[in-house]
């Protein structure tokens, strides 16, 4: 137990900063990723074969590519194409792209739950297709996918551990544990503390998601 106390005195502030960096990376990647996912989903609805084909390719690629492979490509290979992105933004871009692909997928399932009668009614009121999608379909679809999106957010939070693989200016939780375990003997305590932080953050997100779902759930 005093090992934990010693760990906190030596590395306490570092853990605080690492936790904050983890949260920051999670949020800053989720928002653009989510928005991009919604846009991709809506665009895929239009009856334009080239667009649908290209966007399906996009979703399949970013759903199946390993995060590390994508990050390494952005950090190490893109500069050879004269695209130089700094490390933190590379991590955020990686996470956002993958998040957008999964969002597009889940949202598609959510759209499938909207009753056909809704659409027909909206059309008979004279609404244009885009208006129907934005005002009738999307709100209901989004409310239906709160639970998978919560899981996605938790998975995204856990994926911020990717950032330990590039020389970021700051250290997030996994990079910090790796450093402490290499430099000192307090590896076990550091690991336990970091694991606790991840688990608690995940539980908090889960509870918030469940509460949100209960409020927004459409009872049929």
């Amino acid at each position, binding site marked *: 137990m005093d090992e934990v106390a010693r760990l906190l005195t030596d590395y306490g502030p570092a853990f605080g900063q690492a936790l904050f960096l983890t949260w920051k990376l999670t949020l800053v990647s989720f928002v653009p990723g989510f928005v991009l996912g919604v846009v991709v989903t809506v665009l895929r*609805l239009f009856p334009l074969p080239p667009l649908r084909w290209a966007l399906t390719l996009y979703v399949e690629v970013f759903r199946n590519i390993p995060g590390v492979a994508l990050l390494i*490509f952005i950090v190490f290979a893109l500069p050879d194409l004269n695209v130089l992105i700094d490390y933190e933004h590379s991590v955020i871009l990686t996470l956002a792209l993958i998040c957008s692909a999964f969002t597009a997928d889940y949202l598609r399932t959510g759209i499938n739950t909207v009753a056909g009668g809704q659409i027909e009614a909206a059309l008979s009121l004279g609404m244009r297709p885009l208006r129907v999608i934005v005002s009738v379909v999307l709100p209901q679809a989004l409310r239906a996918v709160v639970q998978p999106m919560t899981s996605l957010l938790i998975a995204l939070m856990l994926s911020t551990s990717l950032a330990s693989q590039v020389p970021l200016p700051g250290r997030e939780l996994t990079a910090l544990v790796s450093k402490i375990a*290499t430099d000192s003997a307090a590896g076990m305590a550091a690991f336990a503390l970091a694991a606790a932080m991840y688990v608690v953050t995940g539980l908090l997100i889960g509870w918030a998601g469940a509460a949100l779902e209960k409020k927004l759930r459409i009872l049929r």
Partner: protein
Amino acid sequence: MSRPLEEILFGSPSPRARAITRVVSGIAAAALLALVAAAAMRFHEAGQLEARFWNFFAWPTTWAFLAKGLLGTLASAAMAAVIALTLGLVLMVGRLARPRLVRWPSIALIEFLRGTPTLLLIYACFLVLPSIGVKLSTYWMLTLPIGLSTAAVVAEVYRAGVLAVPRGQTSAARSLGLTEAQVFFLVVFPQALRYIVPALVAQLVIVVKDTTFGYVVTYGELMQNARVLIANYHSLVPVYLVVAALYCLVNYAISRASQRLGRPMH
């Protein structure tokens, strides 16, 4: 829903709508081609289209070398999947058990394994466990954490499937005089499996993706062999592109295989 959304929204278009759609499709196609051309131009300007960066892909030795790396990836992924599927079952049974002494530790273990990043668990096996005397082989240092982490998720997937089986099945089985174990394994679980196969296969894809962390514990897999090719031919972009495509293809194939099995939960 009886008909897909697109058909309701855009089905049976008028001749004018059809014409507009054709024109806009044409524009979209042209825009996409322009995008591809711009990317190719960028490749060309950066000198990435030179033959020396691509010609070694014509040699069978290159592909044999990449295949060896892929084999390392799949060897670890397959075992991790086996661990996840079996341990996941154990964890789920513990989670659904009636006695609190069995249920609470199961819940705690599942939440712990699900709530920590796989990479952190891998670091723990590599850096932390040896300091308390547990020295695994390189292969297990990668496979075990991936298996454990996925087992927790699989346990929850199993649970969702089991809870989706209609209660009537359980009651009917019990009324026939089957024991609890027989009710579960002969009646409930096989039906649950049919619902959750896509979700299980999705976990398999995640397992393959997690093996890319192999270099953290010095396990040789596809990414490492990619680095050797890069060191030999200084061809960063082409090699990484090809390797990324290989991963996508493998994972896509696994996902497609799942679409032939299982049916959705509702």
